[in-house]
């Protein structure tokens, strides 16, 4: 079957979705389980041919889909990769992808690619630079993107503001939306000592369009945002804090390593919905 542009409009992105990983694609296509939406790692779906583009088309026929990318290197001083961006735009149009999210970081510089989410100093220079790049990306795509806070294992002497101030100022200057990863905030709390509750209170809620939940791993002297565990209890508590302000914002479960059966991810998504519902009904959720 050759790829053909769909005619139908995409469904809405609402409720709690799941980050689709290759080990679950077969089950998703065969059984079409009741999941409100899926987030796809765009970089894993950009193969020129073979099965992957066919799977992408098939998944997007069934589910509302968003793209999450790691290759835009929004903070980099290198020129923007318009070839990569062009491919993203083409796929987004072709498959009616609801939106694109990227990360508050750089991944490449001087033509070298780290394939990791590298932090930058939270300085005025970084802010101006990144806001300008996001503006160029949004102009090219013709729509807003979402920028996600990352797990950060580094602190620069030159930082002039904290991360919550930086990401808030960035959203306003670049006129972009935000994706708030609650696990990343908590990992940064454990590793860097940031105050997670204060962080959440500082956010510009009107710009938050998506929330991520994931699990971390205890390593030697730090915790790693490994996405290989269930969402931890303190992260559920923080999530409760956050969604009081965002009752209708879609939520996503990310699980990238030691991936369990799809049914386990659906349980995690259900828990996110239940907690959100409790808040909607005004049931208080203890913050530890």
């Amino acid at each position, binding site marked *: 079957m050759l790829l053909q542009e769909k005619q139908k409009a995409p469904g809405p992105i609402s409720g709690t979705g799941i980050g689709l990983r290759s080990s679950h694609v077969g089950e998703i296509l065969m059984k079409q389980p009741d999941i409100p939406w899926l987030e796809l790692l765009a*970089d894993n779906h950009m193969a020129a*041919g073979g099965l992957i583009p066919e799977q992408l088309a098939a998944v997007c026929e069934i589910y509302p889909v968003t793209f999450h990318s790691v290759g835009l290197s929004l903070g980099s001083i290198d020129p923007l*990769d318009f070839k990569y961006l062009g491919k993203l735009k083409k796929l987004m149009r072709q498959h009616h992808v609801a939106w694109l999210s990227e990360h508050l970081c750089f991944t490449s510089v001087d033509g070298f690619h780290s394939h990791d989410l590298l932090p930058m100093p939270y300085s005025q220079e970084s802010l101006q630079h990144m806001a300008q790049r996001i503006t160029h990306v949004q102009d090219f795509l013709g729509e807003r993107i979402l920028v996600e806070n990352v797990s950060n294992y580094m602190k620069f002497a030159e930082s002039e503001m904290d991360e919550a101030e930086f990401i808030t100022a960035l959203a306003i200057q670049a006129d972009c939306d935000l994706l708030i990863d609650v696990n990343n905030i908590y990992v940064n709390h454990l590793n860097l000592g940031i105050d997670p509750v204060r962080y959440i209170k500082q956010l510009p809620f009107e710009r938050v369009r998506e929330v991520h939940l994931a699990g971390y791993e205890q390593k030697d002297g730090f915790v790693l945002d490994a996405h290989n565990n269930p969402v931890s209890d303190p992260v559920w508590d923080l999530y409760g804090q956050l969604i009081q302000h965002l009752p209708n914002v879609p939520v996503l479960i990310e699980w990238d390593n030691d991936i369990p059966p799809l049914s386990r991810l659906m349980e995690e998504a259900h828990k996110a919905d239940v907690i959100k519902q409790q808040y909607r009904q005004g049931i208080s959720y203890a913050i530890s």
Partner: protein
Amino acid sequence: MPLADVEQTFMQCLIKPYHDVDMFMSKLVVAGSLSPEKQISIYRSNINGAHESVLVQIYPACKTILGEGYFNQLCLLYRIQFPSKHADLNKYGKHFPVFIKVFLEKHNELQVFSYLHDLALLEWYWHAIYYSSNDLPFDFSLLANVAKDQQQKLVFHLSNTVSLQSSCYPVLAIWDANRAELSSEKQKSEQSFEMPDEEICFCIFRDNYEMALKELSATQFEILQAINAGQTLGELSDRFGGDLQSALNYYIQQGWISGFSVDEMSNVR
């Protein structure tokens, strides 16, 4: 320190794992439980792990043969010599077969692994072709429209989803025995492979969505090589005579030939 310097010195710390980090470290401060040294080591370790896992996924047989510890060391050396220059992580590892070849040439004690370059190349093709672009179906009607006086100038195009390889080692048997994790060291030590009498020839290709490999006769292989080198139909006929027609039919049927071109017209697939 301007942002450019921060990013560049940070990246240098990462792509050169033995690089002096003093200059970059002076730009970091203790944060929570993490010292500046620990901050750098976390990123170095994350990046090493991510790159290594890509090579493990592409080169499972090489890893089984060399053992995890040795393979991991090679992964690190490879990353230092060939840092990733492409956003697409699937392209990382492309130079690993050449890297292995040069490494073996420099280390006499590794002569027992002299087949590793060929094995790595096979594993690379197996990986890369899975992601390569699709061909459109071969359009026979266009072939029928080629004027008689142009037919000898016709050049066939090998599909994007086919790679040709030959080896003087029993590389297919070695690959087959080592692709999956072996259950025990005993099983591994029991492996022995007979050297082939003559070079083995094969092609690696994508059959619909599945990867496949087919052994070829020496003539079949030479014809495909000649096609890949851009020889015209006239040149192929002169060289291979009666073997050519059936070979071409078979290649087209397999999807290994994706199109053709002549001076005035082309059907580039």
